């Protein structure tokens, strides 16, 4: 255990603090309709740290930042002041967010098609979903637990992730034949490592399930999870840009989700066309895998979307696998990059050299890790965009 994250004393069942946290977790589970994976162990969090939900299922929580402000309202015998109610509201939001994290199962990272926990796309999806859950239910949960009304309407900690996740659910619901809430429930109740795969599988099942041989499934899944992983993973750059206004982050999260969904949907249409037209012409005969022309179409789309990101000021995407040389040749020289361009170059370099979006797809695996090839961004992006 890192020294700074050292756990304080255990908070035992029967104390006010434990019962409050346990109530928040129980309420979150009740509203979500899923069980929590919290193991019931709660510790005080020392120092200036609000709290952590640990991978072993235990939880730490700050007395100073969360428990004391909550107690001032939830256990109040007199009417709390406005400041106390705001402080308790922030504490509740923190506790609900932690409780929501405890509803997710981490999953097996070694399973086929798994998305590693902590990869950018996993973090974007999980934080976006948890933030949205918190915004939706924090008011109801606090109303269930105290008679004092609490103000809500907090600023988002993850504006790009939350906007993108929320926006994506609508087109993906259509593609999967589910309602938005049904799809969100399906994703949230699936272990984190398999969430992108479950969306792809559900879309394939809904659109062409009975026409696709089992042996084709893994390849098709990659062509659908790729846009989702790149779209959400690439947003790390936006989310962590220090020069970008939160409102701009949120708007780009929203816009990028539209492009992500469009790439997903058009890839799905290509898949559907292939299997349906084969079946119409050769009923009862097992179809071949997608032709090379379809794979080329997927690369064209990936390239187009990458260009759209770059033009919006966020060239976070890797070159399309197999087209690296053309990508690097197109980068114009820029001798005097401004502060914004320097920041973007740093962010891009970080993304490419760490858990870059889509590195887990088959295509990326074949092309290998190209972190040594990273160059400063000198693309045709419009540098004044994306920053406020």
């Amino acid at each position: 255990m890192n020294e700074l994250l050292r756990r304080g004393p255990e908070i035992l069942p029967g104390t006010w603090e434990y019962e409050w946290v346990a109530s928040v977790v129980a309420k979150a589970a009740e509203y979500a309709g899923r069980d929590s994976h919290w193991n019931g162990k709660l510790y005080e969090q020392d120092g200036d740290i609000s709290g952590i939900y640990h991978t072993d299922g235990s939880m730490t929580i700050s007395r100073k930042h969360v428990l004391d402000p909550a107690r001032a309202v939830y256990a109040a015998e007199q009417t709390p002041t406005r400041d106390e109610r705001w402080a308790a509201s922030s504490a509740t939001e923190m506790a609900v967010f932690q409780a929501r994290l405890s509803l997710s199962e981490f999953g097996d990272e070694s399973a086929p098609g798994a998305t590693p926990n902590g990869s950018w796309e996993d973090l974007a999806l999980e934080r976006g979903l948890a933030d949205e859950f918190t915004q939706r239910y924090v008011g109801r949960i606090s109303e269930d637990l105290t008679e004092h009304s609490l103000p809500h309407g907090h600023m988002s900690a993850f504006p790009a992730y939350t906007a993108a996740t929320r926006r994506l659910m609508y087109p993906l619901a259509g593609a999967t034949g589910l309602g938005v809430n049904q799809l969100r429930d399906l994703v949230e109740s699936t272990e984190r490592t398999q969430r992108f795969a479950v969306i792809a599988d559900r879309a394939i099942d809904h659109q062409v399930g009975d026409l696709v041989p089992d042996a084709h499934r893994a390849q098709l899944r990659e062509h659908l999870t790729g846009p989702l992983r790149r779209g959400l993973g690439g947003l790390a750059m936006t989310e962590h840009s220090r020069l970008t206004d939160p409102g701009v982050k949120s708007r780009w999260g929203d816009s990028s989700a539209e492009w992500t969904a469009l790439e997903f949907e058009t890839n799905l249409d290509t898949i559907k066309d292939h299997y349906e037209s084969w079946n119409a012409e050769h009923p009862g005969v097992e179809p071949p895998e997608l032709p090379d022309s379809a794979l080329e179409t997927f690369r064209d789309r990936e390239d187009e979307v990458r260009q759209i990101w770059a033009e919006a000021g966020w060239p976070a995407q890797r070159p399309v696998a197999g087209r690296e040389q053309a990508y690097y040749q197109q980068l114009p020289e820029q001798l005097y990059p401004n502060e914004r361009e320097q920041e973007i170059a740093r962010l891009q370099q970080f993304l490419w050299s760490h858990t870059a979006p889509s590195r887990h797809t088959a295509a990326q695996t074949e092309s290998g890790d190209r972190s040594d090839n990273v160059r400063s961004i000198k693309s045709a992006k419009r540098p004044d965009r994306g920053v406020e």
Partner: protein
Amino acid sequence: MDAYREAQRLYGEATMSAAQGQDRIAQLEQALQRIGQLVPQAAADQRAALLLMNSSLAEQIAGLAEGSR
């Protein structure tokens, strides 16, 4: 710069730091503590976001510490 923007800056800078190993952990710790200290100065509607950014950094440190074991 208000506390929320400052926390967003610290959070982004630390998360995307190119530092490795112990240097990276030290940067994350510094940002974590600074954001924790900013919480009381934050406007009422900003505090929850600071608490979540702070927790998110702590989660990253915990992950790196686990990975280095």
